């Protein structure tokens, strides 16, 4: 099978040899074919990994270019054009294909030859495209794909006769299996020597008249003994299940939940792993650099920026693995069919469903997934509304603000708490904004000229590992090279805003940085929303990623080492009672802090938190960065070490023992029971003769004369200070500084604003320019501003 009859003849006619010193101009061959004809499979088969993705100037259509290696070290460039049924330039896809083939597309010369790929199991319909392509007069190889399907389903065709009828060489191949592909290489070797376009050798029908073209195709089919294959039996059987009135929706639901779970939860460990790797390698790199400013640029700027790019890879890879399997197997079309009626209510279509669902995890892979939507208007509309879905990066912001401002009360008995209700409300808010925006878009700027919606149901096929792998490599490459560079660039700019200008060669406190300058500058603008300049700084840095505002506000509000971070109940320091207003009060050398029936947290040095339980007294013996020493006089305390450098010395004196903390971790000091416990980390205790080193899960009795480390059960010993986190300090500080109206305004602002440069970069990449991301950013930020303004004022009136 798959004989390329007529090849030698025609190739000889079409390609007059040009002598030995042929010009070195690269030859371009275009692949043209209808959707679902196996165009991309053939392209991958021909080029392997020697391909790159590009956009034509000013259009959203993406095309791929690849190098095909021929014998004698020659190669040709192959362009994979969008799938089309005709060359009449009605849609953007058709216009691009038409313009490239006629040499009108800027940036790409007219192709030297055409590979027209058609589905041999569907020949009568696909041959209609042969008429306009052959009339171009370019050397054309007509490739009939799916030869294996044709044969197994009992179809047949006289290939030499078809080549005669079309006046062009014909090859019967299977792109997925690779059979017959050598005929294409033969054609490429011949055709690339160069030939002037010439009039086609056969009589073609008038291209615009589809019934005539169709009759012509049928006629050719009859003359060449084309016998259409039997209907695909397995596809019918599978459809009877997948489109079953009861089983169909259940399978659909299962698939949807599986996709969502995988990218929402399944990617989490991988993302945490990448995060941890970036952070620890950053610390390691930092040790190699003596200069503080340079170290900060490299680690906090560039290295963190690189991290913020590759952190998206797990979600992108997993989502595209799923989409690859769904699309290649043919199920995606069935899923789109099932979801279509619901999506049609919002002016969208079935294929928008999976991208929008993925946007609840993250808008970045979701926007990349919209490429399965062929209709350009529906695709743009889906891209524009995807960032309204509540992505996982918004959650830390929501949780911080809700925790600080919304009382922990029940709304509907114990079923629904007020905080959960507000969180749910924010999810609904995003969803409602998305569907209203979709309706607005589809009835105005993205109004479809065509009223008819159609969706082709391809036969089910096994996805191949080869095709899935290439797809994953392709998507990762596109994301890293095209969107990643923008994300990295913006990350460095945002770093510069937060870490410059330098004071005495050191980065400034964030209050004195350029970001703060911007925060102050925009304060008059954001005041109506109930935000102050500190929130303004957070809005600047959160452009890097939404959750960044939490750490920025943490730095602004509670970052001064040596101060009280949080206090509740009866606490006194240096003889004065502390209350909520005392947050930020300095804990100076020699001072004592005492809790009665209260608790307190103190930031000792950057990244080291001291927590005191009830009825505890502690004294700051040494307050230097190089030497920080606490004396626990009575009661129970805990130290959380998030960051410690070699030059830092950190110690706690309890009874006759001096305990030095050497690693990141959590340490528990129990003066009442004479115990020191290490949850994680490493401590060295001195005072009992030999120094005793003990690590995670070990405790030391400071009263026993032999002082040996013993194991203890970490799970059994919970400790009320273990889960009592520093976030409360930030919440309380925000509570002091922001009105309820401002807080609700901030929640609403984050629900709507396109506060994410990665999304902006990906939209630019997927729409081929700055127009759509510009429109989207302006619209979302405008809406966010307006709604936050309204929310702030409504809440202020009410309360």
């Amino acid at each position, binding site marked *: 099978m798959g004989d390329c009859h007529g090849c030698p003849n025609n190739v000889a006619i079409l390609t007059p040899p040009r002598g030995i010193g042929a010009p070195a101009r690269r030859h371009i061959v275009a692949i043209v074919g209808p959707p679902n004809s196996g165009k991309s499979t053939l392209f991958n088969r021909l080029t392997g990994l020697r391909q790159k993705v590009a956009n034509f100037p000013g259009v959203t259509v993406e095309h791929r270019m690849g190098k095909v290696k021929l014998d004698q070290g020659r190669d040709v460039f192959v362009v994979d054009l969008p799938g089309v049924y005709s060359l009449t330039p009605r849609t953007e896809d058709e216009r691009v294909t038409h313009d490239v083939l006629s040499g009108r597309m800027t940036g790409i010369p007219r192709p030297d030859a055409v590979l027209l790929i058609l589905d041999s199991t569907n020949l009568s319909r696909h041959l209609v495209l042969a008429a306009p392509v052959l009339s171009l007069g370019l050397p054309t190889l007509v490739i009939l794909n799916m030869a294996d399907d044709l044969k197994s389903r009992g179809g047949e065709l006289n290939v030499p006769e078809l080549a005669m009828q079309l006046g062009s060489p014909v090859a019967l191949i299977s792109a997925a299996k690779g059979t017959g592909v050598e005929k294409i290489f033969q054609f490429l070797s011949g055709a690339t020597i160069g030939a002037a376009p010439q009039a086609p050798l056969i009589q073609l029908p008038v291209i615009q008249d589809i019934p005539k073209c169709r009759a012509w195709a049928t006629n050719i089919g009859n003359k060449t003994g084309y016998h259409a294959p039997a209907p695909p039996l397995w596809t019918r059987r599978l459809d009877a299940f997948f489109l079953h009135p009861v089983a169909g929706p259940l399978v659909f639901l299962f698939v949807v939940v599986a996709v969502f779970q995988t990218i929402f939860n399944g990617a989490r460990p991988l993302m945490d792993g990448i995060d941890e790797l970036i952070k620890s390698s950053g610390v390691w790199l930092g040790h190699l650099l003596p200069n503080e400013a340079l170290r900060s640029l490299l680690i906090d700027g560039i290295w963190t920026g690189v991290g913020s790019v590759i952190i998206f890879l797990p979600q992108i890879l997993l989502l595209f693995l799923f989409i690859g399997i769904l699309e290649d197997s043919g199920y995606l079309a069935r899923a789109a*069919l099932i979801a279509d009626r619901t999506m049609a209510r919002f002016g969208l279509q079935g294929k928008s469903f999976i991208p929008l669902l993925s946007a609840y995890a993250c808008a970045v892979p979701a926007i990349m997934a919209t490429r399965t939507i062929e209709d350009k208007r529906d695709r743009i509309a889906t891209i524009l509304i995807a960032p309204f879905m509540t992505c996982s990066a918004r959650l830390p912001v929501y949780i911080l603000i809700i925790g600080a401002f919304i009382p922990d009360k029940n709304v509907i008995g114990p079923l629904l708490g007020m905080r959960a209700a507000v969180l749910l409300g924010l999810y609904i808010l995003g969803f409602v904004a998305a569907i209203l925006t979709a309706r607005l878009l589809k009835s105005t700027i993205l109004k479809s000229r065509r009223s008819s919606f159609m969706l082709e149901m391809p036969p089910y096929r096994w996805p191949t590992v080869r095709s899935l792998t290439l797809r994953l490599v392709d998507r990762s490459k596109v994301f890293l090279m095209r969107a990643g560079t923008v994300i990295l660039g913006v990350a460095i700019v945002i770093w510069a805003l937060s870490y410059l200008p330098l004071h005495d060669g050191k980065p400034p406190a964030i209050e004195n940085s350029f970001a703060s300058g911007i925060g102050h500058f925009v304060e008059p603008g954001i005041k109506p929303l109930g935000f102050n300049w500190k929130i303004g700084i957070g809005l600047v840095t959160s452009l890097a990623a939404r959750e960044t505002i939490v750490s920025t506000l943490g730095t602004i509000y509670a970052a001064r080492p040596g101060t009280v971070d949080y206090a509740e109940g009866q606490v006194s320091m240096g003889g004065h009672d502390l209350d909520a207003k005392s947050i930020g009060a300095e804990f100076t050398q020699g001072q004592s802090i005492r809790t009665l029936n209260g608790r307190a947290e103190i930031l000792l040095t950057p990244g080291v938190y001291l927590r005191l339980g009830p009825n505890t007294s502690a004294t700051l013996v040494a307050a230097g960065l190089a030497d920080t020493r606490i004396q626990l006089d009575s009661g129970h305390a805990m130290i959380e070490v998030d960051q410690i450098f070699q030059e830092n010395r950190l110690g706690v004196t309890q009874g006759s023992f001096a305990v030095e903390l050497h690693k990141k971790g959590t340490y528990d000091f129990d003066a009442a029971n004479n115990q020191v416990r290490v949850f994680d980390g490493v401590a060295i205790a001195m005072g009992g003769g030999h120094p005793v080193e003990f690590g995670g899960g070990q405790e030391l009795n400071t009263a026993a004369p032999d002082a040996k480390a013993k194991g203890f059960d970490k799970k059994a010993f919970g400790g009320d200070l273990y889960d009592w986190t520093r976030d409360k300090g930030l919440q309380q500080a925000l509570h002091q500084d922001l009105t309820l109206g401002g807080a609700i305004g901030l929640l609403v602002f984050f629900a709507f604003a396109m506060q994410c440069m990665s999304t902006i970069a990906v939209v630019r990449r997927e729409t081929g320019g700055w127009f759509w991301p510009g429109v989207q950013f302006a619209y979302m930020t405008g809406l966010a501003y307006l709604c936050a303004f309204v929310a702030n004022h409504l809440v202020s009136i009410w309360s």
Partner: protein
Amino acid sequence: MQLSVKKTSSAKNLTELKPGEAGVLDKLDLPEADAQRLMEMGFVPGHSITRGLSAPGGDPRVFRVDGSEVALRRETARRLLLK
């Protein structure tokens, strides 16, 4: 003139096909661009169309035409008239 309009509106359309039933397409009562696109997909007057399965709720419906299967929404299928 009036008679022909009446005749068109009373003609059987694609939505009236029962599952598995076939009919021959007569005309596409759609704007030019829409009709062209559907014809490219195989909905050419004179060709036989078979109703296939459908999404839950019966919309959109799958039609078999020319060896392939294409789903159309109800509002579109209504405008494809049968002989």
